[in-house]
Structures are given as structure tokens and as C-alpha cells.
């Protein structure tokens, strides 16, 4: 049985290939949870897939429906381990009309999008198979799927939405086909027994085009051996696409820092420990004078800190109490001065009502700052250093996962785990993920843009940023005042269709002769561009001549 579920106006469909009564068709009653209104186990699972498709469809435009062939089925599992699911593109294409780069493999859905036609009629684009048995006796006992759509999985639950979203991302283009498996040493190297680092059928893939080693360079110019070495060059494998590069400062966190701006005697950046509560430091951050509260801040904090940065000594009560009291007094941020020597550690504790940032500085720095406060104002900036971003190199290129400990067979097709905050396409499905692929939460949509998923709201194959006409409808016959010309409408390179230009002729014409002349000019342009034949041009002009315009 095959059932297709689609959204009105969206272009990603989940093709349910489960048999009746199982998987997505499992009629076992279930209680709606976390925004998932399904009332059976199967319906809830399908709703999660549908939600994942919806999230992707909000980021990707394609005039060709993206078909995800999905099943919720038993996969191998035991009390201690399980296959959660798998996904990937069903096929790849190269050298099709619309390919940005010749001699390059594209994932099927992307090839369809760029060409505007289904490369393999009748076939689906992505295959996804997920484990329906999780949580049943003998299958990771005590751990279940979370079917909610709100990222609120509890202890012992795995967020199905995050996993499905992640795996479909691989199928849409977040993966390379460069070989990562050691060849059979008993056989000579060949396309059937390739070396690690060998390109798929000796051609690069679209993902690989943006993979680079910040020591040895782009993968495109490398030998198989060089790529093999690069894929385990931990912390040096990076993504060099322009969209991701631009998004890095908006998505990834800089290094938190505290800088004393004045007086000169103690100016400079100070070592800090950051807090596990309140808001993190950000950029451009907060620049204010310090106000010292010598009371330790355990009962209350002086109102003088209002609109300033509070300096409070460590001791007696918890960090959370001190920071909350400073927040209540109107402080914008808090610096805790340590009461013991050594490098400042982080501030532990939890209080969701705390919204201001706080850090700890060393005892020595605290003493120096307090001494200066006796002489005059001390001005401080608390922010993040965007030149040192977690998960990016000095050039602000996002790092890819290339752990040396897994050689051979490292990932490459994931973001590095040092990315902060956690990203959807890191190899670990982190519990703090939110279901988003967009800036400012996530870099994945930007990567998709880099590999060729350009925005194209009217799916006329002209990118939105160079499309002069919104809402171009291609394919239908050109009609003039309701009378069909029998000529299929097509789009000029500037994104305007023949119909849209004829409509403009009608709107601007002072008289019928002017209209007919304008349409003839449009027909000439279309014919010169190879969009229509001479006979089709004649058909258009004939209908225009008979139209009562103006």
C-alpha cells in the first residue's frame, strides 16, 4: 500500500510505504503529545515525518516535488543498542541542464530542483527507514521515541523529529560520496575497489566542492591520498561556502570575555569563568561602569547597580542568589570576584528566572579592580570575541567533523562537535536541539544554499535575488483575455514570463496597434531566446490581434 501525504502549497511529500496495520499504519491507540494530535502510534510517527518535511519545505524551493519514501519498520535492536533509522538520496545525477558545475554529482532532489524536471520519472528522491520497535521489550528498554513536535523530550526519550530532520538533511544534500572505506588489499585498486579519498566514479560531488582543509587546501585539487589524510585532519576540515561563511557570526558563539576599558592601570582582557544560568554573553555585549557591593549580595544588592555592572564577592551564599539579587536591583550584568586563588571556574547553579549574564573573575583581578574603584570609575565590557568562534577557524569557516580517532572512515558529512550552540547536523543528536535549520539557530539552511538550493519562491528556475517578476507561472498555455494561444508559457532569463510581458503590454498600450506591436516585440524576443518557434510566435500575435485591448 502506498499513501502520499502532502501539504497544501508545499513541495515535500512523505510517501508512506508501510503495509496496512504496521509502521505508519499501526492503529495502536496513542495519547496526543507535544503538539502531535495523532491518536494512534502510526499516525503520530507519520505526523513527525510530516512536520520534518514541513520544516525543510520552509527552507527549500523546488518546482519539482521532493518525494521522501519513508517507512517506520523494525530495525535491529537489543537491550543495549539499536539502529534508530537511516536515510539518504536514492540516486545521483551529473551534467543535467541547470547543473551549476559540470562533471559533478548532485543529490537527486537537488538535481530535480535545478533542472526543473524530475530526472528519474516515477522514482522517489530520498529513502528513509526508521525503527518502529524502540521502547518495546528487548529494544533499548527504558528508552522510547518522543513523538511530540515541541522539542520537549523527557529523560529516556529520543526526539524522533530531530533525528528525522537530521537524516532527511543528509538526503537533501548534506553528504559527500567520497569513499571513506578501506579497499580490499587483496584486490587491485579500481572503481569497484577504490582507495580512501577516491571520488564517486572519479567525479566530485556538489558537497565535496565546498570541503577544504585549512592547511592543505580544497578537496577538489587533491589526490585520493591527500583527501584521505584531510578527512582525519581534526579541527582543520572546513566548509568554505559563502552562505555558511556569512552565517557563522550570526549562528555560532564567540568566545566570552571581560575587558576592562579603563583606567589604564588595569585595562585589558581578564580570564573568566562563565555561568550555567542566565543569558550567555553576546556581541556587541554590555559596556558599563562597575558598581561594587561589598555586602556579598546574599540578602539584597545596592540599588546603585541599576543600569550598571555589579561586582560582588564570592562567599556565604550561592552564585544564583547573588546574581538574582543584583538583577532585582536593576543590574545589567554581574561579575563575581573569586575568594580563593587560581584560575576562575564557571558559575554553577540554576534559576530560570535569571535573565542577565554573569561571570567569575580571579581573586587577584578582583582585588585589583576593587583597589581602582577606590580611586575612580572602572569601565568594563562584557561580550563575546567574534574573532574566536567555537566551531569555526580563524577565517570564520565552519568546521566539519574529522576526528582522528575514527580513522579510517571518519564522517566529513557533519558539522564538527565543537560548534556552539549545538547544530542539527552534528553527528550527535543533541538533546538541546530545536527543530530549526535556519539562521540564527542553525547553519544547515545556509549550507543548502551553498550547494545550490537557491531561493526561488515562484520556482521559475530564476533565483529570487535576480528575478524581476514574482509569481511567474510556467507550463500553462499563454492566454490573452481568456483566449488560449496554445503556446506553453516560458520564462526569460530575468524571471519574467511571456505572459507577464504580454500583460505589461496590455497595461501600457495607448491603443490596439501599440498593444499588437508590443506583443510582436515580445514574440521576437522569445523566438530569439529559443523559447518559442516562429509558428508559436504567429499564434500569439494572432490571438493578440483579435483581443479587444485596449
Amino acid at each position, binding site marked *: 500500500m502506498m499513501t502520499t501525504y502532502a501539504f497544501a502549497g508545499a513541495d515535500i511529500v512523505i510517501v508512506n510505504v508501510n503495509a496496512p496495520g504496521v509502521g505508519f499504519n499501526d492503529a495502536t491507540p496513542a495519547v496526543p503529545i507535544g503538539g502531535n494530535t495523532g491518536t494512534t502510534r502510526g499516525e503520530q510517527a507519520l505526523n513527525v515525518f510530516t512536520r520534518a518535511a514541513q520544516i525543510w519545505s520552509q527552507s527549500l524551493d523546488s518546482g519539482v516535488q521532493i518525494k521522501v519514501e519513508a517507512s517506520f519498520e523494525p530495525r535491529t535492536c537489543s537491550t543495549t*543498542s539499536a539502529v534508530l533509522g537511516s536515510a539518504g538520496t536514492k540516486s545521483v545525477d551529473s551534467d*543535467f541542464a541547470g547543473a551549476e558545475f559540470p562533471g559533478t554529482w548532485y543529490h537527486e532532489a537537488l538535481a530535480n530542483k535545478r533542472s526543473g524536471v524530475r530526472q528519474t520519472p516515477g522514482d522517489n528522491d530520498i529513502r528513509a527507514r526508521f525503527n518502529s520497535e524502540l521502547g518495546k521489550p528487548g529494544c533499548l528498554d527504558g528508552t522510547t521515541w518522543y513523538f511530540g513536535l515541541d522539542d520537549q523530550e523527557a529523560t529516556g526519550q529520543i526526539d524522533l523529529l530531530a533525528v528525522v530532520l537530521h537524516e532527511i538533511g543528509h538526503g537533501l544534500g548534506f553528504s559527500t560520496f567520497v569513499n571513506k572505506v578501506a579497499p580490499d588489499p587483496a584486490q587491485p585498486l579500481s572503481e569497484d575497489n577504490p582507495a580512501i579519498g577516491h571520488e564517486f566514479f572519479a567525479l566530485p560531488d556538489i558537497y565535496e566542492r565546498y570541503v577544504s582543509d585549512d592547511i592543505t587546501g580544497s578537496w577538489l585539487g587533491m589526490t585520493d591520498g591527500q583527501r584521505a589524510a584531510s578527512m582525519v585532519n581534526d579541527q582543520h576540515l572546513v566548509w568554505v561556502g559563502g552562505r555558511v561563511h556569512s552565517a557563522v557570526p550570526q549562528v555560532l558563539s564567540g568566545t566570552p570575555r571581560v575587558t576592562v576599558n579603563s583606567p589604564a592601570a588595569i585595562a585589558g582582557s581578564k580570564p573568566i569563568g562563565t555561568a550555567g544560568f542566565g543569558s550567555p554573553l553576546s556581541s556587541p555585549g554590555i559596556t558599563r561602569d562597575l558598581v561594587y557591593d561589598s555586602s556579598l549580595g546574599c540578602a539584597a544588592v545596592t540599588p546603585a547597580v541599576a543600569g550598571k555592572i555589579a561586582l560582588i564577592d564570592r562567599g556565604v551564599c550561592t*552564585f544564583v542568589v547573588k546574581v538574582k539579587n543584583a538583577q532585582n536591583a536593576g543590574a545589567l550584568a554581574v561579575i563575581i570576584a573569586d575568594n580563593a586563588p587560581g584560575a576562575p571556574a564557571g558559575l554553577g547553579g540554576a534559576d530560570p528566572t535569571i535573565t542577565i549574564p554573569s561571570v567569575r573573575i580571579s581573586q587577584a583581578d578582583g582585588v585589583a579592580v576593587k583597589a581602582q574603584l577606590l580611586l575612580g570609575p572602572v569601565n568594563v565590557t562584557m561580550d563575546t570575541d567574534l574573532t574566536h568562534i567555537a566551531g569555526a577557524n580563524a577565517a570564520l569557516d565552519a568546521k566539519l567533523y574529522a576526528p582522528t580517532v575514527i580513522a579510517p572512515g571518519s564522517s566529513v558529512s557533519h558539522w564538527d562537535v565543537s560548534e556552539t550552540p549545538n547544530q542539527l547536523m552534528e553527528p550527535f*543528536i543533541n538533546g538541546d536541539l530545536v527543530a530549526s535549520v535556519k539562521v540564527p539557530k542553525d547553519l544547515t539552511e545556509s549550507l543548502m544554499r551553498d550547494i545550490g538550493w537557491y531561493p526561488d519562491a515562484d520556482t521559475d528556475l530564476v533565483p529570487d535575488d535576480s528575478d524581476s517578476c514574482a509569481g511567474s507561472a510556467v507550463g500553462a498555455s499563454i492566454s490573452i483575455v481568456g483566449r488560449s494561444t496554445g503556446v506553453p508559457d516560458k520564462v526569460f532569463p530575468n524571471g519574467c514570463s511571456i505572459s507577464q510581458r504580454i500583460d505589461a503590454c496590455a497595461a501600457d498600450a495607448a491603443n490596439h496597434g501599440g498593444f499588437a506591436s508590443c506583443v510582436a516585440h515580445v514574440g521576437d524576443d522569445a523566438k530569439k531566446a529559443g523559447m518559442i518557434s516562429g509558428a508559436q510566435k504567429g499564434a500569439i500575435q494572432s490571438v493578440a490581434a483579435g483581443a479587444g485591448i485596449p
Partner: protein
Amino acid sequence: MDRNLNRNMALIITMFILVFGVGTASAQHAAKAQADNAQLASVDANGKVKTPTPEEIQQITQDTDKNLSHSTKGLVVVKREDGSKHVDLQDRFQAVSLARVGADGKIATECVTSQEEAKKFLEGETKPASKPATVELETK
């Protein structure tokens, strides 16, 4: 005896999670959340948390063998009249999400793209590159 041992071990693990799981704060950069989904894992007769056995690992690698294959053997490059090329991957070159019980009793998950990577993860040898350690922070 075994039952008592199991109960005691379970209590120890529960206490560990309560003390360190709840009391541990994540500081900016110093610690980042992982897929910990802390749970009480089953323990064996010796009170040791059960982790995947070689047989269980083999079963999983058999299940994922095709999905994680990077072999082009048998794949055909179809050349079309318009000059384009097409290859049906036959369910190979896929990404696979796996889960396992770690030595700490917690469930860990990882997405892998090769069989080698899958084995390392299931055998508990994967050590995430540069993954900041979770640090227990002072609260006062």
C-alpha cells in the same frame, strides 16, 4: 544476592544521576549539552551496566551493511541522450543513526556514514573530537 546487588547498583546509578545529572550546570563553552537522555540502564549479574555485546554489534552492522556501503560494485552510470548521467545508489551511501547504552548507563546516539564509524561507536571507542567535557561547577 544478585537481586540485592542489582538493586544496590541501580540505587547507586540513580543517585549518580540525581547528584551529577541535575546538579551539573552547563557553562558557556565549558560544557555543551549532549544527547544524554539519562536513564537507568539494566545491569548484569556483576552489577555492571550492560553494554552492547560483540554479537549485538554484529547484528547491527549486518542490518546497516547495505546502507553504509561505499562500494560502487554493481552500480551503473546511465548516460542519457542529453549528456546527463544518473546512478541509482541502491540504498548505499546513506547515513544511519545509532543508539547504545554507554558505560555510564546513559543512552548515546550518533549518526554515522561508514561501517567503521558504526563499529567504533557501538564498541564505545568513539571519543568526540574536541567535545568539551561536562564540568561540575561550584554553585557558591
